[in-house]
C-alpha cells in the first residue's frame, strides 16, 4: 500500500546539516498496522510527513496505493492527500469549530454538499463513539475525546491509509489503551492501512503487525513484529522484553516467537539432565500471539544437545558471548 524507496532529507540549520532521512525504504502492506519507533530526533516524524509530502524528500520515491506521490504537485497532490487521513499528537482541532464542524472540515474542503456532510459526520461520530458530542467545542472535551474527533476527521474522506503522528503520546495510559483499541477496530472494520510513529514500545507491542526501529535517519531493523522477535540479536525483542543484565558464560536467552503448549524446561532437565535456573523473563501478547523471552543459566554435560533440541522446536536460542 505504501512503498517508499531511497528517501533522503537533509535540513540545513545555521551551522550544521541534519540528515533526518538517510536512505530509508519503507514497505507497508495493505491492511496492516505498521509502527515506526524511535527516539525523538531519529527522523520518524520526517518519514511520516514524507508519505503525504508535508515534507518533500530531497531524494527518493513515495508510492501510495499505486500512485507516485512524489511526482504530484498542486491540485493533484491535494487530491492525493485527501485520500489519506492523518491523526496528530496534539489533535490539531480547530478551536473555533464544533466537533461536527471539525469532522466535516475535510469534506467542506473537498466540496461535499452540506446535507451529505451532515449525514457523513453523524456516521463518523457514531463510529468513534462520540455521537452525542457533535455540538460541543474541542475545549469541552477530554484528551481521549479530542483524539477520537481527530480520528473521525481523518476518516471523513474515506481514506484507505491512515497516518498517525504520535496519536497517543499526549494521553494517559488508560486513554492510550482505548485509542489503540479503536485504531485496531477501524483497521479490522474498514480495512485501513495504518502507518504510525511512536516513541512508546508499548504501542508496537499492542497493535502493530510490522515495525521498524529508527535511529539517526535510518531503519535499524524492519519487518513483521513476530519475525523480528524471532531474529537473533533483534533490538525489538530486547526492547520489548528487557532482561536483567546478570549471568555469566552459561547464560542463554530463549525466545518463544509464538505460543507453545510443550513444557520445554521440565523436558530439558528430564531428557538432557541439565540444570536450568531462570534469571528473568516475561510473556507478552504481541501481534495477537503470546510471545515470551527467558534468560536462564543452563549447565550440564549435555548442554549443547539441549540447546539444539530447543532450536529444533522453533525456539530462538542466543548464548551469552556468541
Amino acid at each position, binding site marked *: 500500500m505504501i512503498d517508499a524507496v531511497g528517501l533522503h532529507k537533509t535540513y540545513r540549520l545555521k551551522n550544521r546539516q541534519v540528515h533526518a532521512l538517510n536512505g530509508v525504504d519503507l514497505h507497508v502492506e495493505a491492511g496492516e498496522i505498521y509502527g515506526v519507533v524511535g527516539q525523538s530526533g531519529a527522523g520518524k516524524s520526517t518519514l511520516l510527513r514524507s508519505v*503525504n509530502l*508535508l515534507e518533500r524528500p530531497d531524494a527518493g520515491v513515495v508510492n501510495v496505493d499505486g500512485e507516485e506521490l512524489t511526482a504530484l504537485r498542486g491540485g493533484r*497532490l*491535494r*487530491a*492525493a*492527500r*485527501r485520500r*489519506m487521513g*492523518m491523526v*496528530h*499528537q*496534539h489533535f*490539531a*482541532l*480547530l*478551536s*473555533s*469549530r464544533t466537533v461536527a464542524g471539525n469532522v466535516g*472540515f*475535510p469534506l*467542506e*474542503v*473537498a466540496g461535499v454538499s452540506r446535507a451529505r456532510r451532515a449525514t457523513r459526520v453523524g456516521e463518523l461520530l457514531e463510529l468513534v463513539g462520540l455521537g452525542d458530542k457533535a455540538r460541543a*467545542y*474541542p*475545549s469541552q472535551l477530554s484528551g481521549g475525546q479530542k483524539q477520537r474527533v481527530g480520528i473521525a*476527521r481523518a476518516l471523513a*474522506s474515506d481514506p484507505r491509509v491512515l*497516518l498517525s503522528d504520535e496519536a497517543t503520546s499526549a494521553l494517559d495510559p488508560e486513554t492510550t489503551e482505548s485509542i489503540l483499541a479503536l485504531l485496531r477496530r477501524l483497521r479490522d472494520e474498514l480495512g485501513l492501512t495504518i502507518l504510525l510513529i511512536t516513541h512508546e514500545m508499548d504501542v508496537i507491542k499492542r497493535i502493530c503487525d510490522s515495525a521498524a526501529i529508527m535511529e539517526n535517519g535510518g531503519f535499524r531493523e524492519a519487518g513483521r513484529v513476530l519475525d523480528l522477535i524471532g531474529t537473533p540479536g533483534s533490538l525489538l525483542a530486547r526492547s520489548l522484553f528487557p532482561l536483567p543484565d546478570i549471568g555469566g558464560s552459561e547464560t542463554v536467552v530463549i525466545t518463544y516467537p509464538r505460543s507453545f503448549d510443550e513444557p520445554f524446561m521440565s523436558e530439558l532437565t528430564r531428557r538432557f539432565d541439565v540444570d536450568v535456573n531462570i534469571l528473568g523473563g516475561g510473556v507478552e501478547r504481541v501481534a495477537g500471539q503470546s510471545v515470551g523471552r527467558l534468560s536462564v543459566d543452563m549447565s550440564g554435560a549435555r548442554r549443547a544437545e539441549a540447546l539444539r533440541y530447543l532450536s529444533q522446536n522453533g525456539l530462538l536460542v542466543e548464548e551469552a558471548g556468541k
Partner: protein
Amino acid sequence: MTTDEILFLAQDGNAVTAVLDFVRDWPNMWPSLWLGTMDTVYMVWWATVFSVLFGLPLGVLLVATDKGGLIPAPAVRAVLSAIVNIGRSLPFIVLMVAVLSLTRFLVGTTLGPTAAIVPLSIGAIPFFARLVETSLREVDREVIEAAHAMGTRKATIVGKVMLPEAMPGLIAGLVMTVVTLISYSAMAGAIGGGGLGDLAIREGYQRFNDHYLWATVILLVVIVQVAQSLGDLMVRRLSRR
C-alpha cells in the same frame, strides 16, 4: 454636611458651583457637541473600514511570506515589514502633516472630517496590520499542518483556518485600533479635521471655554468605553479555548 453648608460652599465659587454651571451650560453646547461627536464617529468609522480593508491583507501577507509560512518570500516580507515600520514609527501629528498633499489629491481639500480619514487610515493600517500579524502567529502550527494534510488550498487555509482561529485576537486588535483612531481623530482636530478634538481645541483651548473641554473629554471617554465594551463582549463570545 448640612444644606446650609452646601449653599455656603456653592456661593464660594468652588467645585460644586463649577459642576452646576457646567450642567446648566450643557444644553447650549449640545448642538455643536452632537455634530462633533458625529464627525468623530464618521472619521473613525471610515478609517476603521480602510484599516481592515488594507491592514488585514497586509497582516496576512506578513505571516504568509515569512519563513515557514504559506508562501515564503523573505524579500517581499522584508519590504512589507519596512513599510509597516515606517508607518508605525511616525508620530501621528507628523504623519498628518506629511500626507497633506496626498489628502488634497484624494479628497480635494485638507480640511474637514472627510479629509482627516486619509491620514487616520494611513496611520492605522500599519498599526492594525501588526496586530493581525501577532494574532495569526498564535494560530497552532499543527492545525495549519493538519489542514495541509487534508488537501486544503492555501487561500482556504487563510479563510477557514487561520482567520477563524485567530478571530478573538483579531477582534481585540480591531478594538485597540478603534480606540487609537479615536485618539488620533482628536489630534486631527488640531489641523482642522473637525470632530470632538477640533471642538476641544477651538472652543476649549483657544477661547478658554473649560466647559467645552470637559464635555469633549466626557464624550471621548464614553465613546472609548462603548467601543471597548462591545469589543470585549465579542471577544468573549468568540473565545472557545
